[in-house]
């Protein structure tokens, strides 16, 4: 199994994977830049109620003052989240939500579905005919790619987000919010995101096994996860959707006071399933087990490409 994993990791070192990871990191940097700019805009022109806009009436002073205070709070929250330690929460939340879905769908599509499209599946399965092992190696390596992307995204954000925040003129966080403030929360979020990336990878590998083609596998994996997101909003059965398990496990909830979103997930789920964290983890584990069974069953089909 060790050499098989080595071979699979070596195959992962390819432009498709670098591109997907780089695109995800670039997207998060853009998001940090946009959040910093929005925060700067908020500071420059706080949201004052229309009736008080341009008014110096004494009755408006509290509302204007509150608008300035809110803008400063939001800017400070954005600036605090854009520090090296805390920004890991953004990287983790994003990789455990839609950006992570797209990343793992792309990687699984190329790494596993592509074996059929390029017909390399023949040499792969004749050299290692124990198909369960091949599936396990594929799952572990797609998962590893997701974890690597998480590390890269955090590192890139840690390096660039403070610069972005400073260049936007956001108020500097106080001494309590120094560079490594929030590291513990980020590490916890990253740990949770690793589990979710395992689920996304399992979906990608199962999709590759069913679809047997790079583009088809990517589409099926991304499509399946989007469907679970839609289902999560359905009354009754919504709680049983894997998207609800992810939401519960990651603790995704209402947006914070800053401009930088910590995930793209809960905003697509209307209503709440009220699952606990452990229930979410159990749901993820059961979903992975079901996906593994489906993939193993499908991989037993004839290889005719």
């Amino acid at each position, binding site marked *: 199994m060790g*050499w*098989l994993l080595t071979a699979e990791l070596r195959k992962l070192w390819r432009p498709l994977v670098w591109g997907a990871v780089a695109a995800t990191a670039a997207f998060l940097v853009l998001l940090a830049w946009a959040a910093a700019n929005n925060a700067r805009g908020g500071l420059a022109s706080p949201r004052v109620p229309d009736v008080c806009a341009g008014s110096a009436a004494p009755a408006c002073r509290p509302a204007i003052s509150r608008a300035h205070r809110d803008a400063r709070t939001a800017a400070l929250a954005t600036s605090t989240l854009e520090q090296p330690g805390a920004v890991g929460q953004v990287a983790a939340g994003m990789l455990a939500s839609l950006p992570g879905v797209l990343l793992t769908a792309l990687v699984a599509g190329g790494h596993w579905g592509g074996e059929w499209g*390029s*017909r390399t599946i*023949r040499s792969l*399965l004749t050299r*290692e*005919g124990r198909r369960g092992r091949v599936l396990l190696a594929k799952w572990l390596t797609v998962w590893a790619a997701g974890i690597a992307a998480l590390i890269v995204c955090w590192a890139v954000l840690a390096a660039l987000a403070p610069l972005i925040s400073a260049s936007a003129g956001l108020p500097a966080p106080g001494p309590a919010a120094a560079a490594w403030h929030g590291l513990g929360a980020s590490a916890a979020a990253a740990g949770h995101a690793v589990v979710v990336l395992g689920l996304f990878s399992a979906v990608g590998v199962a999709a590759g096994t069913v679809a047997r083609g790079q583009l088809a596998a990517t589409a099926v994996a991304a499509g399946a996860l989007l469907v679970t997101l839609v289902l999560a909003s359905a009354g009754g059965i919504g709680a049983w959707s894997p998207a609800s398990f992810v939401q519960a496990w990651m603790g995704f909830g209402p947006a914070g006071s800053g401009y930088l979103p910590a995930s793209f997930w809960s905003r697509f789920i209307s209503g709440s399933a009220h699952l606990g964290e452990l229930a979410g983890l159990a749901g993820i584990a059961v979903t992975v087990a079901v996906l593994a069974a489906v993939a193993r069953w499908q991989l037993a089909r*004839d290889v005719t490409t």
Partner: protein
Amino acid sequence: MTGRRPAPYRRVVDAIRCEGLTKRFGAAIAVDDLTLAVAPGQVYGFLGPNGAGKTTTIRMLLGLIAPGAGRAWLLGRPLPDPRAVARVGSMIEEPAFYPWLSGRANLEVQAATAGRRPDRAEVARVLSLTGLEEVAGRKVRAYSQGMRQRLGLAAALLGKPPLLIADEPTNGLDPAGIRELRDLLGGLAADGTTVFLSSHLLAEVEQVCDRVAVISRGRLVEEGPTGQLGVTRRRVRVRVEQPDVEAAAVQLGRWPGRRDGQVFVVDHGRGRDVNAALAAAGVIAESVTVEQPSLEDRFLELVTENPAGARTAGPDAAGAGAAAAGLTEEDSHGLAADR
């Protein structure tokens, strides 16, 4: 009491053995009741027109396709057995590689996939055997088709497998490459490697293979030593005058064959016997010619004139007697019907 035990009996097992191997895809039957055996050390040719079932057979042997019926053994182990398959070097149709990796890296990945440490010396050996040392560091996406074919062969030879299964290995090779491949296969056979070679280049098969099987529409139609199917399988072409046609038909009916007007083609190796039979009936032939059909001629006869797949076999093939009798009977009827 000597205290010595007799040496353990070492059973010689076939490198490949199929018994009644069958595969259907929906209503279409791809391989139908295929039975054959490849002895260790043989270079075995597997012939058939496009769509005859050659690749499906190879895929079943390599565990890529599950047989619908029948049994198969590789290197003495009953299939499915991934460990037995992993010991086989194989190359199915156009070999496929990871284009973003170099030729050398592709070979190292394949070795690691098989559970072996990628041994640089072994990789260098197969690259040298296939003449790819100079381009081994280049990305495979820049390889020509011939280079990919060579790389496929290099991959199949990794780890010195006791059995090499090659499906159309000469595709994309230039004449020099084909000659090199022929020499390479000869060298492998000399080293004791069993080679199962599926090819449509009959001249190559004729030169390289010890034994040949021909399949058509999924059925084995002939199997035996290469010489029995081709060069040494002679026939006699007789031309007689119109008044002698009836008498000649009676005399020549003792052998299988066919008739086209005043010309008889008799499947018999000795022209002297045919001449004597005609002379005994007072028939003077216009011409008596002994022909030596090539493997290609025989192959085309088999796949065009015998599409239903009546099986024949060489004299030392498994089940040869009954199968050979089948052909004799069928062809004799054909000749009789012409009379």
